[in-house]
Protein backbone atom coordinates (compact mmCIF):
# COMPACT_ATOMS: atom_id res chain seq x y z
CA UNK A 1 0.00 0.00 0.00
CA UNK A 2 1.05 3.56 0.82
CA UNK A 3 2.64 5.81 -1.74
CA UNK A 4 3.51 3.13 -4.26
CA UNK A 5 -0.04 1.93 -4.58
CA UNK A 6 -1.38 5.47 -4.70
CA UNK A 7 0.91 6.15 -7.64
CA UNK A 8 0.31 2.75 -9.16
CA UNK A 9 -3.47 2.92 -9.23
CA UNK A 10 -3.28 4.41 -12.66
CA UNK A 11 -6.62 3.01 -13.67
CA UNK A 12 -8.64 4.68 -10.98
CA UNK A 13 -7.87 8.18 -12.14
CA UNK A 14 -5.22 10.88 -12.23
CA UNK A 15 -2.09 10.03 -10.34
CA UNK A 16 -0.28 12.57 -8.24
CA UNK A 17 1.83 14.54 -10.64
CA UNK A 18 4.85 14.39 -8.36
CA UNK A 19 5.14 10.65 -8.93
CA UNK A 20 5.82 11.09 -12.61
CA UNK A 21 7.92 14.20 -12.54
CA UNK A 22 10.35 13.78 -9.71
CA UNK A 23 13.82 13.13 -11.08
CA UNK A 24 14.86 9.56 -10.29
CA UNK A 25 18.01 10.34 -8.37
CA UNK A 26 17.82 13.46 -6.28
CA UNK A 27 21.35 14.82 -5.68
CA UNK A 28 21.99 14.18 -2.02
CA UNK A 29 22.66 17.35 -0.05
CA UNK A 30 26.18 17.43 1.39
CA UNK A 31 26.11 16.11 4.91
CA UNK A 32 27.35 18.56 7.50
CA UNK A 33 30.66 17.56 9.11
CA UNK A 34 29.30 17.49 12.62
CA UNK A 35 27.32 14.37 13.24
CA UNK A 36 24.29 14.31 15.46
CA UNK A 37 21.42 16.48 14.18
CA UNK A 38 21.86 16.36 10.42
CA UNK A 39 19.93 19.46 9.47
CA UNK A 40 20.86 23.00 10.36
CA UNK A 41 18.41 25.82 9.89
CA UNK A 42 19.96 27.32 6.69
CA UNK A 43 20.26 23.87 5.11
CA UNK A 44 16.63 23.28 5.87
CA UNK A 45 15.64 26.60 4.29
CA UNK A 46 17.70 25.78 1.18
CA UNK A 47 16.04 22.38 0.91
CA UNK A 48 12.63 23.96 1.18
CA UNK A 49 13.44 26.56 -1.47
CA UNK A 50 14.77 23.91 -3.84
CA UNK A 51 11.71 21.73 -3.33
CA UNK A 52 9.42 24.68 -3.92
CA UNK A 53 11.25 25.71 -7.08
CA UNK A 54 11.05 22.19 -8.46
CA UNK A 55 7.37 21.92 -7.60
CA UNK A 56 6.46 25.25 -9.16
CA UNK A 57 8.51 24.43 -12.26
CA UNK A 58 6.69 21.16 -12.82
CA UNK A 59 3.39 22.88 -12.08
CA UNK A 60 4.03 25.37 -14.85
CA UNK A 61 4.80 22.50 -17.23
CA UNK A 62 1.47 20.85 -16.41
CA UNK A 63 -0.50 24.06 -16.96
CA UNK A 64 1.35 24.71 -20.22
CA UNK A 65 0.59 21.15 -21.29
CA UNK A 66 -3.10 21.68 -20.52
CA UNK A 67 -3.18 24.84 -22.60
CA UNK A 68 -1.36 23.09 -25.44
CA UNK A 69 -3.63 20.04 -25.30
CA UNK A 70 -6.68 22.29 -25.52
CA UNK A 71 -5.12 24.13 -28.45
CA UNK A 72 -4.14 20.92 -30.25
CA UNK A 73 -7.69 19.65 -29.81
CA UNK A 74 -8.92 22.76 -31.55
CA UNK A 75 -6.44 22.31 -34.41
CA UNK A 76 -7.09 18.58 -34.73
CA UNK A 77 -10.82 19.08 -35.12
CA UNK A 78 -12.06 18.60 -38.65
CA UNK A 79 -13.60 21.61 -40.34
CA UNK A 80 -13.07 25.33 -40.28
CA UNK A 81 -11.64 26.73 -37.03
CA UNK A 82 -13.92 29.76 -37.21
CA UNK A 83 -16.98 27.47 -37.36
CA UNK A 84 -15.74 25.43 -34.40
CA UNK A 85 -15.04 28.48 -32.25
CA UNK A 86 -18.49 29.88 -32.97
CA UNK A 87 -20.18 26.58 -32.19
CA UNK A 88 -23.92 27.16 -31.93
CA UNK A 89 -23.45 30.86 -31.20
CA UNK A 90 -24.61 33.69 -33.45
CA UNK A 91 -22.85 33.68 -36.81
CA UNK A 92 -22.49 37.09 -38.43
CA UNK A 93 -19.72 38.46 -40.67
CA UNK A 94 -18.69 40.84 -37.86
CA UNK A 95 -18.28 37.97 -35.38
CA UNK A 96 -16.33 35.95 -37.94
CA UNK A 97 -14.06 38.92 -38.53
CA UNK A 98 -13.53 39.44 -34.81
CA UNK A 99 -12.65 35.76 -34.33
CA UNK A 100 -10.12 35.89 -37.14
CA UNK A 101 -8.66 39.05 -35.58
CA UNK A 102 -8.65 37.69 -32.02
CA UNK A 103 -7.12 34.29 -32.82
CA UNK A 104 -4.98 35.69 -35.66
CA UNK A 105 -6.27 32.98 -37.98
CA UNK A 106 -4.69 34.68 -41.01
CA UNK A 107 -1.24 34.27 -39.48
CA UNK A 108 0.96 31.14 -39.50
CA UNK A 109 -0.03 28.47 -36.96
CA UNK A 110 3.01 28.81 -34.73
CA UNK A 111 2.38 32.56 -34.40
CA UNK A 112 -1.27 31.85 -33.56
CA UNK A 113 -0.19 29.38 -30.88
CA UNK A 114 2.27 31.82 -29.33
CA UNK A 115 -0.32 34.60 -29.42
CA UNK A 116 -2.76 32.25 -27.66
CA UNK A 117 -0.22 31.49 -24.93
CA UNK A 118 0.53 35.21 -24.63
CA UNK A 119 -3.13 36.02 -24.10
CA UNK A 120 -3.42 33.31 -21.46
CA UNK A 121 -0.42 34.79 -19.63
CA UNK A 122 -2.24 38.11 -19.49
CA UNK A 123 -5.24 36.33 -17.98
CA UNK A 124 -7.33 36.66 -21.13
CA UNK A 125 -9.28 33.41 -21.48
CA UNK A 126 -11.05 34.43 -24.69
CA UNK A 127 -14.67 35.06 -25.48
CA UNK A 128 -17.65 32.75 -25.37
CA UNK A 129 -19.42 32.91 -28.70
CA UNK A 130 -22.58 31.41 -27.30
CA UNK A 131 -22.96 33.86 -24.45
CA UNK A 132 -21.21 36.76 -26.18
CA UNK A 133 -19.12 37.53 -23.09
CA UNK A 134 -15.58 37.10 -21.80
CA UNK A 135 -14.93 33.56 -20.56
CA UNK A 136 -13.08 34.92 -17.52
CA UNK A 137 -16.17 36.86 -16.40
CA UNK A 138 -18.47 33.87 -16.87
CA UNK A 139 -16.21 31.58 -14.83
CA UNK A 140 -15.68 34.19 -12.09
CA UNK A 141 -19.44 34.56 -11.78
CA UNK A 142 -20.13 30.82 -11.58
CA UNK A 143 -17.20 29.69 -9.47
CA UNK A 144 -18.89 30.63 -6.17
CA UNK A 145 -21.48 27.81 -5.96
CA UNK A 146 -18.96 25.30 -7.33
CA UNK A 147 -16.31 26.31 -4.80
CA UNK A 148 -18.81 26.09 -1.94
CA UNK A 149 -19.75 22.60 -3.09
CA UNK A 150 -16.12 21.51 -3.45
CA UNK A 151 -15.10 22.78 -0.01
CA UNK A 152 -18.13 21.24 1.68
CA UNK A 153 -17.48 17.93 -0.09
CA UNK A 154 -13.78 17.91 0.78
CA UNK A 155 -14.47 18.64 4.45
CA UNK A 156 -17.17 15.96 4.64
CA UNK A 157 -14.94 13.41 2.91
CA UNK A 158 -12.00 14.01 5.25
CA UNK A 159 -14.17 13.83 8.38
CA UNK A 160 -15.84 10.63 7.16
CA UNK A 161 -12.51 9.05 6.18
CA UNK A 162 -10.91 9.77 9.54
CA UNK A 163 -13.99 8.38 11.27
CA UNK A 164 -13.85 5.20 9.18
CA UNK A 165 -10.17 4.78 10.00
CA UNK A 166 -10.52 5.45 13.73
CA UNK A 167 -13.52 3.18 14.18
CA UNK A 168 -12.11 0.22 12.25
CA UNK A 169 -8.32 0.26 12.77
CA UNK A 170 -6.99 -2.58 14.86
CA UNK A 171 -10.35 -4.35 15.02
CA UNK A 172 -9.40 -7.52 13.18
CA UNK A 173 -10.20 -9.00 9.80
CA UNK A 174 -13.94 -8.26 9.71
CA UNK A 175 -13.22 -4.54 9.84
CA UNK A 176 -10.67 -4.88 7.03
CA UNK A 177 -13.17 -6.74 4.88
CA UNK A 178 -15.97 -4.27 5.62
CA UNK A 179 -13.81 -1.28 4.75
CA UNK A 180 -12.47 -2.82 1.55
CA UNK A 181 -16.05 -3.64 0.57
CA UNK A 182 -17.01 -0.01 1.09
CA UNK A 183 -13.98 1.04 -0.95
CA UNK A 184 -14.99 -1.31 -3.79
CA UNK A 185 -18.44 0.30 -3.86
CA UNK A 186 -16.86 3.75 -3.67
CA UNK A 187 -14.77 3.31 -6.82
CA UNK A 188 -17.45 1.38 -8.70
CA UNK A 189 -20.77 3.10 -8.17
CA UNK A 190 -21.05 6.09 -10.52
CA UNK A 191 -21.58 9.51 -8.95
CA UNK A 192 -24.90 10.09 -10.65
CA UNK A 193 -26.23 6.81 -9.26
CA UNK A 194 -25.28 7.86 -5.71
CA UNK A 195 -26.85 11.26 -6.39
CA UNK A 196 -30.10 9.77 -7.72
CA UNK A 197 -30.38 7.39 -4.77
CA UNK A 198 -29.77 10.12 -2.16
CA UNK A 199 -32.19 12.42 -3.98
CA UNK A 200 -34.85 9.75 -4.11
CA UNK A 201 -34.57 8.85 -0.42
CA UNK A 202 -33.90 12.17 1.32
CA UNK A 203 -35.58 14.68 -0.98
CA UNK A 204 -38.46 12.86 -2.61
CA UNK A 205 -39.43 10.31 0.05
CA UNK A 206 -38.49 12.02 3.32
CA UNK A 207 -38.59 15.60 2.07
CA UNK A 208 -35.65 16.67 4.28
CA UNK A 209 -33.77 18.56 1.59
CA UNK A 210 -34.75 20.62 -1.48
CA UNK A 211 -34.80 18.80 -4.79
CA UNK A 212 -32.77 21.31 -6.77
CA UNK A 213 -31.27 24.78 -6.82
CA UNK A 214 -28.80 26.53 -4.53
CA UNK A 215 -30.48 28.28 -1.60
CA UNK A 216 -28.86 28.01 1.78
CA UNK A 217 -26.99 25.16 3.40
CA UNK A 218 -29.84 22.69 3.04
CA UNK A 219 -29.40 22.57 -0.70
CA UNK A 220 -25.69 21.89 -0.21
CA UNK A 221 -26.01 18.80 2.00
CA UNK A 222 -26.93 16.12 -0.55
CA UNK A 223 -24.61 17.31 -3.36
CA UNK A 224 -21.68 17.51 -0.93
CA UNK A 225 -22.49 14.04 0.39
CA UNK A 226 -22.73 12.67 -3.17
CA UNK A 227 -19.22 13.88 -3.89
CA UNK A 228 -17.83 12.98 -0.49
CA UNK A 229 -19.03 9.37 -0.16
CA UNK A 230 -16.84 7.81 -2.90
CA UNK A 231 -13.81 9.84 -1.83
CA UNK A 232 -14.31 8.94 1.82
CA UNK A 233 -14.46 5.25 0.91
CA UNK A 234 -11.09 5.33 -0.84
CA UNK A 235 -9.42 7.71 1.60
CA UNK A 236 -10.79 5.84 4.62
CA UNK A 237 -9.20 2.58 3.50
CA UNK A 238 -5.82 4.21 2.94
CA UNK A 239 -5.94 5.98 6.31
CA UNK A 240 -6.99 2.78 8.05
CA UNK A 241 -4.11 0.79 6.63
CA UNK A 242 -1.68 3.58 7.47
CA UNK A 243 -3.00 3.63 11.02
CA UNK A 244 -2.68 -0.14 11.42
CA UNK A 245 0.86 -0.04 10.09
CA UNK A 246 1.78 2.79 12.45
CA UNK A 247 0.34 0.94 15.45
CA UNK A 248 2.69 -1.97 14.76
CA UNK A 249 5.80 0.21 14.71
CA UNK A 250 8.36 0.04 17.54
CA UNK A 251 7.50 3.60 18.61
CA UNK A 252 3.95 2.47 19.29
CA UNK A 253 5.22 -0.29 21.56
CA UNK A 254 7.43 2.22 23.35
CA UNK A 255 4.53 4.59 23.83
CA UNK A 256 2.37 1.79 25.18
CA UNK A 257 5.17 0.81 27.55
CA UNK A 258 5.23 4.41 28.78
CA UNK A 259 1.65 3.82 29.78
CA UNK A 260 -0.07 5.79 27.03
CA UNK A 261 -3.66 4.78 26.46
CA UNK A 262 -4.49 3.39 23.04
CA UNK A 263 -6.63 6.43 22.31
CA UNK A 264 -3.83 8.89 23.15
CA UNK A 265 -1.40 6.83 21.07
CA UNK A 266 -3.65 7.07 18.04
CA UNK A 267 -4.46 10.73 18.50
CA UNK A 268 -0.95 11.95 19.29
CA UNK A 269 1.29 9.66 17.26
CA UNK A 270 -0.25 7.18 14.87
CA UNK A 271 -2.68 9.45 13.03
CA UNK A 272 0.14 11.69 11.85
CA UNK A 273 1.87 8.67 10.28
CA UNK A 274 -1.35 7.55 8.64
CA UNK A 275 -1.94 10.97 7.13
CA UNK A 276 1.02 10.85 4.75
CA UNK A 277 -0.23 8.14 2.38
CA UNK A 278 -3.69 9.71 2.66
CA UNK A 279 -2.31 13.08 1.62
CA UNK A 280 -0.81 11.68 -1.60
CA UNK A 281 -4.33 10.74 -2.63
CA UNK A 282 -5.61 14.27 -2.34
CA UNK A 283 -4.34 15.22 -5.80
CA UNK A 284 -6.44 12.37 -7.19
CA UNK A 285 -9.31 13.49 -5.01
CA UNK A 286 -9.24 17.09 -6.30
CA UNK A 287 -9.20 15.93 -9.91
CA UNK A 288 -12.19 13.71 -9.10
CA UNK A 289 -14.01 16.57 -7.40
CA UNK A 290 -13.62 18.76 -10.47
CA UNK A 291 -15.22 16.35 -12.89
CA UNK A 292 -17.66 14.64 -10.58
CA UNK A 293 -18.93 18.12 -9.65
CA UNK A 294 -20.06 18.53 -13.27
CA UNK A 295 -22.28 15.46 -12.88
CA UNK A 296 -23.41 16.32 -9.37
CA UNK A 297 -24.46 19.82 -10.42
CA UNK A 298 -26.50 18.27 -13.23
CA UNK A 299 -28.19 15.76 -10.88
CA UNK A 300 -29.17 18.44 -8.36
CA UNK A 301 -29.82 21.21 -10.88
CA UNK A 302 -27.29 23.49 -9.18
CA UNK A 303 -25.75 26.54 -10.81
CA UNK A 304 -21.94 26.50 -11.18
CA UNK A 305 -19.03 25.73 -13.45
CA UNK A 306 -20.51 22.32 -14.25
CA UNK A 307 -23.57 23.82 -15.85
CA UNK A 308 -21.39 26.22 -17.88
CA UNK A 309 -19.22 23.33 -19.08
CA UNK A 310 -22.18 21.21 -20.14
CA UNK A 311 -23.78 24.07 -22.04
CA UNK A 312 -20.46 24.81 -23.73
CA UNK A 313 -19.85 21.15 -24.64
CA UNK A 314 -23.33 20.69 -26.08
CA UNK A 315 -23.11 23.94 -27.99
CA UNK A 316 -19.50 23.35 -29.08
CA UNK A 317 -18.47 26.63 -27.43
CA UNK A 318 -14.73 25.87 -27.60
CA UNK A 319 -13.28 28.94 -25.83
CA UNK A 320 -15.25 28.05 -22.68
CA UNK A 321 -14.29 24.37 -22.77
CA UNK A 322 -10.62 25.19 -23.34
CA UNK A 323 -10.66 27.65 -20.45
CA UNK A 324 -12.16 25.05 -18.12
CA UNK A 325 -9.47 22.51 -19.08
CA UNK A 326 -6.82 25.10 -18.21
CA UNK A 327 -8.64 26.11 -15.02
CA UNK A 328 -8.75 22.51 -13.85
CA UNK A 329 -5.01 22.17 -14.44
CA UNK A 330 -4.39 25.35 -12.41
CA UNK A 331 -6.52 24.09 -9.51
CA UNK A 332 -4.86 20.67 -9.63
CA UNK A 333 -1.34 22.14 -9.65
CA UNK A 334 -2.09 24.62 -6.88
CA UNK A 335 -3.55 21.98 -4.60
CA UNK A 336 -0.76 19.48 -5.16
CA UNK A 337 1.91 22.13 -4.59
CA UNK A 338 0.33 23.21 -1.32
CA UNK A 339 0.11 19.55 -0.33
CA UNK A 340 3.74 18.97 -1.09
CA UNK A 341 4.62 21.73 1.35
CA UNK A 342 2.13 20.28 3.81
CA UNK A 343 3.95 16.92 3.80
CA UNK A 344 6.84 18.73 5.45
CA UNK A 345 4.55 19.93 8.20
CA UNK A 346 3.12 16.45 8.74
CA UNK A 347 6.43 14.60 8.53
CA UNK A 348 9.45 16.36 10.06
CA UNK A 349 11.76 13.73 8.52
CA UNK A 350 11.17 15.27 5.09
CA UNK A 351 12.38 18.68 6.22
CA UNK A 352 15.99 17.57 6.58
CA UNK A 353 16.30 16.07 3.12
Amino acid sequence: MSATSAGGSAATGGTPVAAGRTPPARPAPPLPETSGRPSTRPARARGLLRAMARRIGSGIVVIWAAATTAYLALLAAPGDTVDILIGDGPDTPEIRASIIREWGLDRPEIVQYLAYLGRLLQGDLGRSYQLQRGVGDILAEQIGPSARLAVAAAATAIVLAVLIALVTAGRGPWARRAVSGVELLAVSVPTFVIGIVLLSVFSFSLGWFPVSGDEGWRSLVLPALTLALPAAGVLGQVLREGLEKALEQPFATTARARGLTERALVARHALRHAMLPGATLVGWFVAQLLTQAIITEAVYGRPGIGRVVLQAVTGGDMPVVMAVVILSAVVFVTVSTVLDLLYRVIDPRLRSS
Partner: protein
Amino acid sequence: MAQVTLRPTRPYAYRLALPGAVFAVIAVAVVAPGLLTGTDPLAADPLHALEGPSTAHWFGTDHLGRDVFSRVVHGARHSLSIGVAATGLAAAVGVLLGLAAGLAPKWLDEVLARSFDVLATFPELLLALLVIAITGPGTANVIFAIGIAQIPNLARVVRAQTFVVRRAGYVEQAVTFGLPGPVLVVRHVLPNVLGPVLVLATIVLAQSIIAASALSFLGMGPQPPAPEWGAMLSEARNYMRVAWWQAVFPAAAVAVTVVSLTAAGRVLRYRFEGRDT
Protein backbone atom coordinates in the same frame (compact mmCIF):
# COMPACT_ATOMS: atom_id res chain seq x y z
CA MET B 1 -2.17 -8.81 13.45
CA ALA B 2 -0.11 -8.64 10.28
CA GLN B 3 -1.18 -10.74 7.32
CA VAL B 4 1.62 -13.25 7.24
CA THR B 5 -0.46 -16.33 6.56
CA LEU B 6 -0.14 -17.64 3.03
CA ARG B 7 -3.38 -17.25 1.17
CA PRO B 8 -4.69 -20.38 -0.51
CA THR B 9 -5.79 -20.02 -4.11
CA ARG B 10 -9.32 -21.30 -3.64
CA PRO B 11 -10.86 -18.21 -2.04
CA TYR B 12 -10.02 -16.32 -5.22
CA ALA B 13 -11.92 -18.72 -7.43
CA TYR B 14 -14.75 -18.33 -4.96
CA ARG B 15 -14.51 -14.55 -5.18
CA LEU B 16 -14.85 -14.81 -8.97
CA ALA B 17 -18.06 -16.85 -8.72
CA LEU B 18 -20.43 -13.99 -7.97
CA PRO B 19 -19.06 -11.60 -10.61
CA GLY B 20 -19.03 -14.54 -13.02
CA ALA B 21 -22.73 -15.17 -12.45
CA VAL B 22 -23.45 -11.49 -13.06
CA PHE B 23 -21.42 -11.58 -16.29
CA ALA B 24 -23.38 -14.61 -17.47
CA VAL B 25 -26.70 -12.82 -17.01
CA ILE B 26 -25.34 -9.68 -18.68
CA ALA B 27 -23.96 -11.72 -21.57
CA VAL B 28 -27.41 -13.20 -22.18
CA ALA B 29 -28.94 -9.71 -22.01
CA VAL B 30 -26.45 -8.45 -24.58
CA VAL B 31 -26.54 -11.38 -26.99
CA ALA B 32 -30.17 -12.48 -26.74
CA PRO B 33 -32.30 -10.03 -24.74
CA GLY B 34 -35.38 -11.84 -26.09
CA LEU B 35 -34.60 -14.79 -23.79
CA LEU B 36 -35.06 -12.63 -20.69
CA THR B 37 -38.00 -10.53 -21.75
CA GLY B 38 -40.62 -10.79 -24.46
CA THR B 39 -41.65 -7.14 -24.20
CA ASP B 40 -40.60 -4.49 -26.72
CA PRO B 41 -38.46 -1.88 -24.90
CA LEU B 42 -39.78 0.86 -27.18
CA ALA B 43 -43.51 -0.04 -27.06
CA ALA B 44 -45.27 2.88 -25.39
CA ASP B 45 -48.58 2.36 -23.56
CA PRO B 46 -49.71 5.75 -22.14
CA LEU B 47 -52.71 4.18 -20.40
CA HIS B 48 -50.35 2.25 -18.12
CA ALA B 49 -47.70 4.94 -17.59
CA LEU B 50 -45.80 5.19 -14.27
CA GLU B 51 -47.22 2.00 -12.79
CA GLY B 52 -45.30 0.38 -9.96
CA PRO B 53 -43.65 -3.04 -10.10
CA SER B 54 -46.17 -5.84 -10.64
CA THR B 55 -46.25 -9.37 -12.06
CA ALA B 56 -46.97 -7.94 -15.52
CA HIS B 57 -44.18 -5.34 -15.27
CA TRP B 58 -41.48 -6.56 -12.87
CA PHE B 59 -39.70 -3.19 -12.69
CA GLY B 60 -42.86 -1.10 -13.34
CA THR B 61 -43.47 1.18 -16.30
CA ASP B 62 -41.97 4.55 -17.21
CA HIS B 63 -43.59 7.90 -18.07
CA LEU B 64 -44.56 6.64 -21.53
CA GLY B 65 -45.81 3.33 -20.25
CA ARG B 66 -42.80 1.39 -21.51
CA ASP B 67 -41.73 -1.70 -19.57
CA VAL B 68 -38.72 -0.73 -17.39
CA PHE B 69 -37.52 -4.34 -17.03
CA SER B 70 -37.40 -4.76 -20.78
CA ARG B 71 -35.60 -1.44 -21.17
CA VAL B 72 -33.00 -2.38 -18.55
CA VAL B 73 -32.38 -5.74 -20.27
CA HIS B 74 -32.14 -4.25 -23.76
CA GLY B 75 -30.10 -1.34 -22.35
CA ALA B 76 -27.22 -3.70 -21.53
CA ARG B 77 -26.26 -3.85 -25.19
CA HIS B 78 -26.22 -0.06 -25.59
CA SER B 79 -24.43 0.68 -22.35
CA LEU B 80 -21.82 -2.05 -22.53
CA SER B 81 -20.99 -1.81 -26.23
CA ILE B 82 -19.79 1.78 -25.72
CA GLY B 83 -17.56 0.71 -22.84
CA VAL B 84 -16.17 -2.32 -24.70
CA ALA B 85 -15.51 -0.40 -27.90
CA ALA B 86 -13.84 2.47 -26.03
CA THR B 87 -11.64 0.04 -24.09
CA GLY B 88 -10.70 -1.74 -27.32
CA LEU B 89 -9.74 1.53 -28.95
CA ALA B 90 -7.76 2.65 -25.90
CA ALA B 91 -6.00 -0.72 -25.62
CA ALA B 92 -5.03 -0.81 -29.31
CA VAL B 93 -3.62 2.71 -29.37
CA GLY B 94 -2.24 2.47 -25.85
CA VAL B 95 -0.30 -0.72 -26.65
CA LEU B 96 1.13 0.79 -29.85
CA LEU B 97 2.20 4.03 -28.16
CA GLY B 98 3.50 2.26 -25.06
CA LEU B 99 5.54 -0.20 -27.14
CA ALA B 100 6.86 2.65 -29.28
CA ALA B 101 7.94 4.59 -26.21
CA GLY B 102 9.48 1.52 -24.59
CA LEU B 103 11.52 0.61 -27.67
CA ALA B 104 12.26 4.10 -29.03
CA PRO B 105 15.51 6.02 -28.65
CA LYS B 106 15.82 7.74 -25.31
CA TRP B 107 14.84 11.25 -26.42
CA LEU B 108 11.65 10.07 -28.12
CA ASP B 109 10.75 7.91 -25.14
CA GLU B 110 11.29 10.92 -22.88
CA VAL B 111 8.87 13.03 -24.96
CA LEU B 112 6.21 10.30 -25.12
CA ALA B 113 6.51 9.32 -21.48
CA ARG B 114 6.20 12.91 -20.28
CA SER B 115 3.10 13.45 -22.41
CA PHE B 116 1.50 10.27 -21.02
CA ASP B 117 2.28 11.47 -17.48
CA VAL B 118 0.80 14.89 -18.01
CA LEU B 119 -2.28 13.61 -19.85
CA ALA B 120 -2.85 11.00 -17.14
CA THR B 121 -3.12 13.76 -14.54
CA PHE B 122 -6.23 15.10 -16.29
CA PRO B 123 -9.49 13.57 -15.21
CA GLU B 124 -10.73 11.22 -17.97
CA LEU B 125 -14.18 12.76 -18.04
CA LEU B 126 -12.77 16.22 -18.73
CA LEU B 127 -10.67 14.94 -21.64
CA ALA B 128 -13.74 13.14 -22.98
CA LEU B 129 -15.82 16.31 -22.72
CA LEU B 130 -13.11 18.25 -24.58
CA VAL B 131 -13.32 15.72 -27.43
CA ILE B 132 -17.15 15.80 -27.48
CA ALA B 133 -17.13 19.60 -27.59
CA ILE B 134 -15.43 19.24 -30.98
CA THR B 135 -17.14 16.15 -32.38
CA GLY B 136 -20.61 16.76 -30.98
CA PRO B 137 -22.75 14.23 -29.07
CA GLY B 138 -23.65 10.73 -30.30
CA THR B 139 -22.76 7.10 -29.64
CA ALA B 140 -19.72 6.90 -31.94
CA ASN B 141 -18.33 10.17 -30.63
CA VAL B 142 -18.69 9.05 -27.02
CA ILE B 143 -16.75 5.84 -27.82
CA PHE B 144 -14.03 7.91 -29.45
CA ALA B 145 -13.93 10.42 -26.56
CA ILE B 146 -13.74 7.83 -23.77
CA GLY B 147 -11.22 5.76 -25.72
CA ILE B 148 -8.89 8.72 -26.17
CA ALA B 149 -9.22 9.70 -22.52
CA GLN B 150 -8.13 6.20 -21.40
CA ILE B 151 -5.07 5.95 -23.67
CA PRO B 152 -2.48 7.65 -21.39
CA ASN B 153 -3.04 5.23 -18.50
CA LEU B 154 -2.71 2.15 -20.68
CA ALA B 155 0.28 3.52 -22.57
CA ARG B 156 2.10 4.13 -19.29
CA VAL B 157 1.62 0.55 -18.14
CA VAL B 158 2.68 -0.89 -21.52
CA ARG B 159 5.78 1.31 -21.59
CA ALA B 160 6.84 0.24 -18.10
CA GLN B 161 6.25 -3.42 -18.95
CA THR B 162 8.15 -3.11 -22.24
CA PHE B 163 11.17 -1.89 -20.30
CA VAL B 164 11.06 -4.99 -18.12
CA VAL B 165 10.58 -7.44 -21.01
CA ARG B 166 13.24 -5.78 -23.15
CA ARG B 167 15.90 -6.52 -20.57
CA ALA B 168 14.75 -10.10 -19.98
CA GLY B 169 17.17 -12.94 -20.73
CA TYR B 170 15.11 -14.48 -23.53
CA VAL B 171 14.94 -11.20 -25.42
CA GLU B 172 18.66 -10.59 -25.13
CA GLN B 173 19.29 -14.12 -26.29
CA ALA B 174 17.04 -13.63 -29.30
CA VAL B 175 18.98 -10.48 -30.15
CA THR B 176 22.21 -12.45 -29.95
CA PHE B 177 20.79 -15.02 -32.37
CA GLY B 178 20.14 -12.20 -34.80
CA LEU B 179 16.35 -12.25 -34.84
CA PRO B 180 15.13 -9.31 -36.92
CA GLY B 181 13.58 -6.46 -34.91
CA PRO B 182 9.93 -6.70 -36.00
CA VAL B 183 9.83 -10.49 -35.49
CA LEU B 184 11.38 -10.05 -32.07
CA VAL B 185 8.78 -7.49 -31.06
CA VAL B 186 5.79 -9.49 -32.32
CA ARG B 187 6.97 -12.90 -31.14
CA HIS B 188 8.64 -12.12 -27.82
CA VAL B 189 7.99 -8.61 -26.53
CA LEU B 190 4.32 -8.17 -27.36
CA PRO B 191 2.97 -11.41 -25.84
CA ASN B 192 4.78 -10.76 -22.58
CA VAL B 193 3.59 -7.18 -22.42
CA LEU B 194 -0.04 -8.14 -22.96
CA GLY B 195 -0.58 -10.00 -19.65
CA PRO B 196 -0.70 -6.94 -17.39
CA VAL B 197 -2.59 -5.05 -20.10
CA LEU B 198 -5.42 -7.58 -20.02
CA VAL B 199 -5.69 -7.27 -16.26
CA LEU B 200 -5.69 -3.49 -16.42
CA ALA B 201 -8.19 -3.61 -19.28
CA THR B 202 -10.79 -5.15 -16.94
CA ILE B 203 -10.56 -2.11 -14.72
CA VAL B 204 -10.40 0.29 -17.67
CA LEU B 205 -13.56 -1.39 -18.97
CA ALA B 206 -15.29 -0.74 -15.65
CA GLN B 207 -14.20 2.90 -15.73
CA SER B 208 -15.28 3.23 -19.36
CA ILE B 209 -18.74 1.89 -18.57
CA ILE B 210 -19.05 4.45 -15.76
CA ALA B 211 -17.89 7.21 -18.11
CA ALA B 212 -20.22 6.06 -20.89
CA SER B 213 -23.28 6.01 -18.67
CA ALA B 214 -22.27 9.33 -17.09
CA LEU B 215 -21.93 10.98 -20.51
CA SER B 216 -25.26 9.48 -21.58
CA PHE B 217 -26.80 10.75 -18.35
CA LEU B 218 -25.54 14.22 -19.34
CA GLY B 219 -27.21 13.81 -22.72
CA MET B 220 -24.04 13.30 -24.80
CA GLY B 221 -24.53 9.63 -25.68
CA PRO B 222 -27.20 7.56 -27.42
CA GLN B 223 -30.27 9.73 -27.99
CA PRO B 224 -33.80 8.85 -26.83
CA PRO B 225 -35.68 6.60 -27.18
CA ALA B 226 -32.66 4.25 -27.10
CA PRO B 227 -32.75 2.32 -23.79
CA GLU B 228 -29.30 3.24 -22.48
CA TRP B 229 -28.97 3.04 -18.67
CA GLY B 230 -27.53 6.52 -18.13
CA ALA B 231 -30.02 8.10 -20.52
CA MET B 232 -32.87 6.24 -18.79
CA LEU B 233 -31.77 7.69 -15.45
CA SER B 234 -31.67 11.15 -16.88
CA GLU B 235 -35.30 10.79 -18.09
CA ALA B 236 -36.33 9.19 -14.81
CA ARG B 237 -35.02 12.10 -12.76
CA ASN B 238 -38.07 14.16 -13.79
CA TYR B 239 -40.55 11.56 -12.51
CA MET B 240 -38.85 10.54 -9.29
CA ARG B 241 -41.48 12.02 -7.02
CA VAL B 242 -44.05 9.57 -8.41
CA ALA B 243 -42.01 6.66 -9.79
CA TRP B 244 -38.83 5.66 -7.93
CA TRP B 245 -38.67 2.39 -9.88
CA GLN B 246 -37.99 4.17 -13.13
CA ALA B 247 -34.67 5.47 -11.69
CA VAL B 248 -33.66 2.79 -9.22
CA PHE B 249 -33.53 -0.22 -11.57
CA PRO B 250 -31.29 1.27 -14.28
CA ALA B 251 -29.11 2.72 -11.49
CA ALA B 252 -28.80 -0.72 -9.93
CA ALA B 253 -27.94 -2.22 -13.34
CA VAL B 254 -24.99 0.15 -13.80
CA ALA B 255 -23.83 -0.30 -10.23
CA VAL B 256 -23.98 -4.12 -10.23
CA THR B 257 -22.18 -4.34 -13.58
CA VAL B 258 -19.34 -2.05 -12.58
CA VAL B 259 -18.91 -3.49 -9.09
CA SER B 260 -18.65 -7.01 -10.58
CA LEU B 261 -16.12 -5.88 -13.17
CA THR B 262 -13.98 -4.04 -10.64
CA ALA B 263 -14.09 -6.97 -8.22
CA ALA B 264 -13.12 -9.42 -10.99
CA GLY B 265 -10.33 -7.08 -12.12
CA ARG B 266 -8.91 -6.99 -8.62
CA VAL B 267 -8.99 -10.76 -8.22
CA LEU B 268 -7.18 -11.10 -11.56
CA ARG B 269 -4.65 -8.47 -10.58
CA TYR B 270 -3.95 -10.23 -7.31
CA ARG B 271 -3.57 -13.56 -9.13
CA PHE B 272 -1.19 -12.31 -11.78
CA GLU B 273 0.70 -9.55 -10.07
CA GLY B 274 0.43 -10.50 -6.44
CA ARG B 275 -0.74 -7.09 -5.35
CA ASP B 276 -4.04 -6.04 -3.91
CA THR B 277 -6.23 -3.02 -4.72
